[in-house]
């Protein structure tokens, strides 16, 4: 089992990260491990989360990475309450596997078109590294697979696998 300090260490070694801390927060009745990362240049939470998965394996238990301008501190320690509040407000995308077949097929299309191994159903398209090329690729693949044509606005409005799957259901 990977320990929290190991995750912090891996994150802090990422070239775009200045400082990282991993904490356990209470969210919707369960404990989740999330990291807070202070970036030195632009980087997204899902990209850092996938970086940890790539370095330490898929079962680190890290649910999400919150990008912070400055590490929130309280009494000389990381302010866990403020991180828990950020998670509660939905500011940190938590990794979640597809829950049904439509989500699974959409996630597989994203993964193939964007060349990203791990796509959570709540991940934001742009934060996962999507661009104009992958938009067109995904729209074309969805048309083939679901027989439903989408325009760029509909796609960008959805922006996550879960919301896109809702449109397609």
């Amino acid at each position, binding site marked *: 089992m990977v320990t929290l300090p190991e995750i912090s260490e891996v994150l802090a070694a990422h070239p775009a990260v200045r400082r990282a801390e991993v904490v356990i927060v209470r969210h919707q009745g369960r404990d989740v491990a999330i990291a807070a990362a202070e970036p030195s240049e*632009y980087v997204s939470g899902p990209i850092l989360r996938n970086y940890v998965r790539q370095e330490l394996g898929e079962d680190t238990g890290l649910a999400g990475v919150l*990008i912070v*301008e400055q590490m929130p501190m309280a009494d000389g320690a990381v302010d866990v309450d403020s991180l828990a509040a950020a998670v509660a407000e939905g500011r940190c995308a938590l990794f979640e596997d597809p829950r049904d077949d439509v989500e699974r097929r959409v996630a597989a299309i994203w993964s193939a078109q964007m060349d990203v191994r791990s796509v959570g159903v709540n991940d934001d398209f*742009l934060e996962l590294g999507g661009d*104009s*090329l992958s*938009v067109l690729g995904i729209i074309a693949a969805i048309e083939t697979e679901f027989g439903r044509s989408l325009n760029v606005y509909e796609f*960008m409005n959805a922006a996550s696998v879960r919301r896109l799957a809702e449109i397609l259901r």
Partner: protein
Amino acid sequence: MVLSVRRRIGDIARADPDRTALIGFDTNLVEQVLSWREFADRVADAADALRAAVDDRSRSCAVVPAGNTLPAAIAIAAALTAEVPVFPLNPTTPLAERDALLRLLGRRFTHGYLVDAELRPQRLDLSAGSAVADGHGTVADGHGTVADGHGTAADGPGPGKPGTVAYLLATGASTGIPKISARPGPLRYDPMRTPSLVIRQAGWRSAQRQLIVGPLYHAAPFTAFLDAMLDSNTVVLQPFFAPRWTPELVHRYAIEWLQLTPTHMREILRGSPDLDPACFASLRAMLHTAARCDPDTKRGWIDLLGPERVYELYGATEGVGVTLVRGDEWLARPGTVGRGLLTQIRILDNDGNPVPPGMTGTVFMRTPQRVGRADYVNDQAIRTTPDGFATVGDHGRLDRDGYLYLEPRDHDTINVGGEKVDPDEVEAALRDHPAVVDAVAVAVPHGTLGSVVAAHVMLRPGTSVRRAELAAHCGRRLAGYKIPKQFTFVDQIPRSAAGKVQRWRLTSHHETPHHENGATPL
């Protein structure tokens, strides 16, 4: 497959040698036509000459006096082919401004080469600028992009070294502080990205016939020309703007795609009140950008072309994000600049918290292009959030369906005793007067109200009108505090060719110091 400019132009010329690439006019307005084969040959020759003249490509740039002429178009294409960073210069730039621009270039480049109408590179002295030190000498380091989607070394394969520049553009025309933004390079053709998605959504087709009205030294016409060249268009260059000439050129050359500024649009409607819609029968789309368009002009064009052919794009040159709106959407939501295209929009209050739909705040946008966003060569105009949203400082609101509405920029808003006056509204009311050709509303100091509205007015030749009559005219259209309290008649409203008012050129004593020295960046 991603191709170099040299390879792409050569491919088009081989596939379609006799098709027209460029149509221009000489100083006697005699038509000049170049086929794709002729264009490719002349570009290749000029590129070779530039390569031979330049010792160190990474530290040299080409400066092209970029009127809308065939030699200027060839010179720009040649520099991009030679992979020498190119700066299209307004040939009518006053000497002092020109020197300031060259000094800015001198911060980044050791050698400049002027490529004139003869297409012979000549050494330029950029070093004169090193004497000017203003403490903001940070030069863009190659993280740059304009709001378009040419393939670049940054987002596709290519031999470009990090920090290589494709082209440089002067910006900041409405504040008077010259700025230059750098676009990383070298320029590449990528069939999936050239032109960008937003341009393709705005009625663009490969191998179309395009008229370029705005000058090649401005961002929108410049990038439209690059897209045209890489996407095998036939380009007609209108050498200068004459309002009655544009519809005639559209008709004569069966133009399919056209990009205009709101000033062009307004002048064309005024220049030909009885304009025949049949002139535009060939046109698939008219895209307008740059300054904001007043509702009368917008409706005039929607009447002329039908709503499905009128597109408006709002996008900061810096590649922060872009919105697009078609005429039919605009009619349903008058005043909107549309929805984000491949762009997420967030409206934030002064503390950085999101505000609900309908509430005004600062417009932040996020796009995939942020990685290659252009920085200004000489200042930092973009604010960003940790999660990748950025703003150039515009204010606005979103409706529930995600359509963006912009508020006037802070430094343009006139504050009359706490009431905010949008100068656009005052100017539109003045232009509505039959004797008025153009107008600019500005703030002038006032003892008790802080400031009041003053107007610079350009009258139709041979007409005269009393100030009281103009005030009464405004009074029928505007609330009392919005009515100009002073009128100054001028021969010409100083506008950049993109139609933005160059407020710092209004040298009247009315101008507040704030406007006079252009101390506000952006």
